[in-house]
């Protein structure tokens, strides 16, 4: 099981010189270089497309993309905002289902050895299948226009990283920590609550950061294979076939923005749930 690396490498606990202060919040200045490169890249794109006189179907200017976004924001044949909302709903539904099932399987396989023997090899084998290839089948089973067929595609993609990472987090505890708990005559349930679950939280959040992106990919790709028309995937396919590439780009931009917001939400929740972890990471 090596899909996603653990959230933290085990830190060495050798003798350390002194007390460390709390750190971990990065200043705005830290992000400045990245921001400059980003804005510079966009400007360069605009200038180069203008200078080379590239046709819009090859690469539209950023300003043209923004204009298309504005023109098709809420209405018309390519109404982007309702499409993005619909796709986000599918992705969110898939994320919730995939995460829930992933957590259930992870806890079951840690709790029961038999479950581990049956579930883990199956899950690993299933992960080796190019799952996205099942999209047409899901569309067939659950209905082409049923958002559930897209949500399930997202759920399947989300399931594996969540399951694999959480299993790792629950199992990869220091053996000495388990012995410590045994020396207190702690029950398995107490060991789960006070040792395994807290240990798994950073792994879980690492998985969630990947899972949010995967859920969007799953939903959008499933939409490529057909379905209700007011969704991002259909917008992309249809605008491209109508050679309205500025709209295609606008739809992609919207999808990207959704993905970034998704990620940031997870990062913020992580900060609240395991604030100590950001500090530990900054130390490493």
């Amino acid at each position, binding site marked *: 099981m090596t899909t996603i690396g653990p959230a933290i490498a085990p*830190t060495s*606990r*050798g*003798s*350390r*010189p*002194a*007390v*460390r*202060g*709390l750190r971990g919040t990065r200043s705005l200045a830290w992000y400045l270089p990245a921001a400059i490169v980003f804005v510079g890249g966009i400007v360069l794109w605009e200038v180069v497309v203008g200078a080379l006189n590239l046709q819009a179907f090859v690469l539209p200017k950023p300003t043209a993309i923004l204009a298309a976004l504005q023109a098709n924001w809420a209405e018309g044949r390519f109404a982007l905002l309702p499409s993005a909302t619909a796709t986000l709903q599918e992705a969110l539904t898939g994320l919730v289902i995939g995460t829930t099932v992933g957590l259930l399987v992870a806890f079951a396989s840690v709790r029961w050895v038999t479950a581990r023997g049956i579930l883990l090899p199956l899950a690993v084998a299933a992960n080796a299948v190019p799952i996205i290839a099942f999209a047409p089948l899901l569309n067939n089973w659950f209905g082409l226009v049923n958002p559930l067929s897209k949500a399930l595609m997202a759920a399947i993609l989300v399931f594996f990283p969540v399951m694999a990472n959480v299993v790792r987090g629950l199992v990869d505890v*220091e053996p*000495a*920590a388990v*012995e*410590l*708990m*045994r*020396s*207190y*005559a*702690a029950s398995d349930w*107490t060991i789960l609550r*006070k*040792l395994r679950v*807290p*240990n798994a*939280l950073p792994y879980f959040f690492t998985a969630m950061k990947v899972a949010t992106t995967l859920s969007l990919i799953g939903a959008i790709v499933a939409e490529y294979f057909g379905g209700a028309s007011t969704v991002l995937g259909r917008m992309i396919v249809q605008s491209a076939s109508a050679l309205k590439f500025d709209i295609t780009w606008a739809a992609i931009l919207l999808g990207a923005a959704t993905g970034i917001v998704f990620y940031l939400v997870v990062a913020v929740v992580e900060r609240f749930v*395991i604030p*100590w*972890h950001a*500090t*530990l990471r900054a*130390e490493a």
Partner: protein
Amino acid sequence: MTDPSPRAAQQTGPVVRVSGVDKTFRRGDRAVTKALEAIDLDIARGEFVSLIGPSGCGKSTLLRIVGDLTSPSTGTVTVNGKTAEQARRDRDYGMVFQAPVLFDWRTVEDNVKLPLEILGWDAARRASRAREMLDLVELGEFVKHHPFQLSGGMQQRVAIARALAFEPSILLMDEPFGALDEMTRERMNGEVLRIWERTGTTILFVTHSIPEAVFLSSRVVVMSARPGRITTIVDIDLPRPRTDETRESRRYFELVTAVREALRAGGAELDDRGTVGPGSDASIERTIAEGAVG
């Protein structure tokens, strides 16, 4: 026997009685390593007993058998008149390992509270006890820090505070200061003695440092290389309280020499700092490869 600590004479009979203990590690049906052989050891209430011997001679195994983290192949362990398992269920043990084994997600204070939560103490009592213990190990200012923000020595003091918090009747310490530098180690030795004198706990302490064993203990149990056997028990009749002057006294040097000679007689290699060398690690591999012993 040797000088008992203040609260020593409350109960009669040994706190720990190890009799006829052998331990053979097996892989499948094959005996792989004979770690301990014919171990008999009584520890009285309030004693400070050190185990010393070459690496791989079974010190940790013996400690873990006493603490019911593993069971003997033959023989019995009685703790406070009960089986080791019952003693563990009754929370008679405080354990300190070579690594501090603190939980990163808990603050220093909450790490100390961990056993108290498991024992079902109420929040107010937990808080006041955690403070008290952290003051005892002089970490009162660091209650809100996380373990990774502390030095190795401070982390080990948190581990000691945690082990003492629920007043276990026996403290089992497995090379608790093995990873610390010499100066920190000597300071920690002083602290452990201070705590032991104040609490009257019985301590079983594993070390590979002769000076440490002599400085701390009422008795030093010297073990031979595999299979681990008790070759000699050296009574340490140094006066208490032990201080830096103790380390310069003639009797101290005599006792260090006595322990060193007992170790040599048991076949251990020593380095010039009085540390028991790695001994026969290569032979461990060989034993396992050949499945020779047993």
